[in-house]
C-alpha cells in the first residue's frame, strides 16, 4: 500500500531522516516509535506528501506521490497532524465538512448538504452532539476527536495519525485506539501511527518501526522487538517488559534513565 524507499530529509545542515525505507501492507497497522526528534513525525509527513524528501521516493498504491495532485493524494491518504491553528468562526460540522473537499471538489462543496461520510465520521468519533459547537471553544479532547472526524471524513484508505492520543484522558485514548482498530478491521484501513506510549503501540499495532537518530533501528511484530534492550537502545531508559495476561502483548514500565 505504502512504499517509502531511501527517504532522506534535511533541515538545513541537520539530517533528520537518513535513507529510511518502510513498507506498509494493505490493512496493516504500523506504529512508529522513538525518542523526541528521532524523525518519526517527519517520516509521517513525508508519507502524507506534506514534506517532499530531499532524496527517495514514496509510492501509494504503486504511484509515486510526486506524480499525484494534492487532491489525488488526499483521496488516498488522510493525516491527523499534531496540532491545528485556531480556525475562527467555524462549527464542528463545518470543520468535518472540509474533509470532503478532495472528493467533492470546489463545485461540490458549494451546497450545504451533509453527506454520509461526514455523518459516519462524526458518529464514529462521538462528536454528533458537538455538531453546532464552535471548534475554538472545544476542550482539548473534544477538539482532538473533531479533528479525527475531519481526517476520517476524507474516507481515504490510508490513515496517518501523529500522536492521536495527545490531549485525551485514558478513556478517550482507549476509545480512539479501539475506533481505529475497528476501522482497520471493518474497512481494511491501512494505518500508520506515531505513538509515544510503547505499551499502546505494542498492543494495537501489527508491526513496530523504531527510529533512532533518523534511521530505522529495529522493526518487526511487537512481541518480537519490544524488550528491555529496545527500551535502552532506542529510548535511553532502563525498564522491564512483560507479557500482559489479557492481551498477550508486551507491556513496559520504565524505571530510570539509562546512562
Amino acid at each position, binding site marked *: 500500500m505504502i512504499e517509502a524507499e531511501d527517504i532522506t530529509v534535511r533541515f538545513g545542515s541537520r539530517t533528520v531522516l537518513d535513507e529510511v525505507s518502510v513498507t506498509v501492507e494493505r490493512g496493516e497497522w504500523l506504529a512508529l516509535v522513538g525518542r523526541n526528534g528521532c524523525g518519526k513525525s517527519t517520516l509521517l509527513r513525508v508519507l*502524507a*506528501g*506534506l514534506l517532499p524528501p530531499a532524496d527517495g521516493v514514496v509510492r501509494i498504491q504503486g504511484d509515486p506521490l510526486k506524480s499525484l*495532485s*494534492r*487532491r489525488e*493524494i*488526499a*483521496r488516498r*491518504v*488522510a*493525516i491527523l*497532524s499534531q496540532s*491545528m*491553528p485556531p*480556525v*475562527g*468562526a*467555524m462549527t464542528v460540522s*463545518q*470543520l468535518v*465538512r*472540509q*474533509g470532503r*473537499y*478532495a472528493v467533492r471538489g*470546489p*463545485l461540490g*462543496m*458549494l451546497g450545504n448538504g451533509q453527506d454520509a461520510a461526514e455523518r459516519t465520521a462524526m458518529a464514529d468519533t462521538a462528536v454528533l452532539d458537538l455538531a453546532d459547537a464552535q471548534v475554538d471553544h472545544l476542550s482539548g479532547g473534544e477538539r482532538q476527536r473533531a479533528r479525527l472526524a*475531519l*481526517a476520517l471524513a*476524507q474516507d481515504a484508505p490510508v490513515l496517518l495519525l501523529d500522536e492521536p492520543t495527545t490531549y485525551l484522558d485514558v478513556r478517550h485514548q482507549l476509545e480512539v485506539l479501539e475506533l481505529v482498530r475497528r476501522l482497520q478491521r471493518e474497512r481494511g484501513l491501512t494505518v500508520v501511527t506515531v505513538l509515544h506510549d510503547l505499551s499502546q503501540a505494542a498492543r494495537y499495532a501489527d508491526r513496530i518501526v523504531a527510529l533512532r537518530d533518523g534511521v530505522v533501528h529495529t522493526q518487526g511484530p511487537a512481541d518480537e522487538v519490544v524488550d528491555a534492550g529496545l527500551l535502552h537502545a532506542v529510548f535511553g531508559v532502563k525498564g522491564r517488559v512483560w507479557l500482559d495476561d489479557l492481551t498477550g502483548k508486551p507491556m513496559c514500565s520504565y524505571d530510570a534513565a539509562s546512562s
Partner: protein
Amino acid sequence: MIRGFLAVLAVLLIIGSLMLGTPFVGVNRLFAGGIEHIVVVELRAPRLLLGLLAGGALGVAGLMLQESLRNPLAVPELLGVSGGAAAAVTVCVVFGLTVPGAPLLPAVAGAAVGAGLTLLAVRGAVGPEATLLIGAAVSAALQAVLLAASALADSRDQGVLVRYLLGSLTGTDWADVLVVGIALAVVTPLAVLCLPSLKVLRLGDEAAASAGLNAGRARVVVLTVSCLLIAVVVGFCGPIAWIGFLAPQLARALGTASAFWSMVFGALLVVAADLAARTVLYPIELPVGGLTAVIGVAVGILVLSRRRRRVPA
C-alpha cells in the same frame, strides 16, 4: 431578529437615499413625473445602485482577502490593490492619456500591477504576515505615485483626484452602473468558486494540504479574483476605504464569516455612508470614502482592543 432589523434598515436606507437631498422628494412622489422624477431616476437611483454594487463587491473581496491570508487586517488598502488601481486612473487623468476602456481597464491594470508587485515580492517569503507587510509597503509607494501625479494636476481635475484619493459616488450615471454591473456579473461566478477553498484554508496550510488543497496556489487564485472585484469598484468609485475591512468584521459579529453577509453589510455600509456624506454637512458634499475611513479606523481599533482583552498577551 437581527436579520429582520437588517432588512428594515436596508429598506429605510434605500428609500432614504432616493428621497433625501435637494430637492427633497416625498415617498408619495418618488414615482411621480416632473423634475423630481428626473432627479430620482437619473441622479439618485444610479448612485444608490452603484453604491450597493460597490459595497457588496468590496465586502466580498475583503472577506476573501482576510480569510485567505488568515488576517483580519488584510484589507485592499494594505495589499497594493486599491492603491494600484487608484494610481493608474489618476495618472491617466492628470496626464490626459486617452486609454480605451477608461477607467475600467486602467484600474484593472493598476490593481494587477499593485497586487503583482506584492505577490512577486511575497514569493519566497513565508506566511501571511509577510504578505501584509510587503503589501503595505507597495501600497505606500503607489500612494506616493498618486500624490506626485496630483501635485502636477490641473485645478479642473480636483474632483477626479478627490475621487481616487478618497473614493466618491458623486456624479454617477446609468452608464457607470451598467459597466460595473456587467463587470461584476463576470467576476462574481469566479468569486463563488473560490468560496469553498476559503474554508479549507482556515485549517492552516498543512491541514489544507492534507484535505487536498494546494494552499499556496489556492491563495494566488483567491487574491487574483478579489483584485478583479476591487479593481472594478476602484475604477469607478475610487478606493472607498475600509469597507473590505468593516463588512467581514460585521458578518463575523453575526457569528458567520459568510460571503453573503459580508456582501450585505458592504452594500449597506456604502449606501449609509454615502447618504450621510450627502446630507450631514449639507450643502457641502463629503467624499464617501472619507466617512468610511473614519468609521473603519474606529471599528478597527475597537476590534483590536477587544481581541487583546480576550487573549492576554
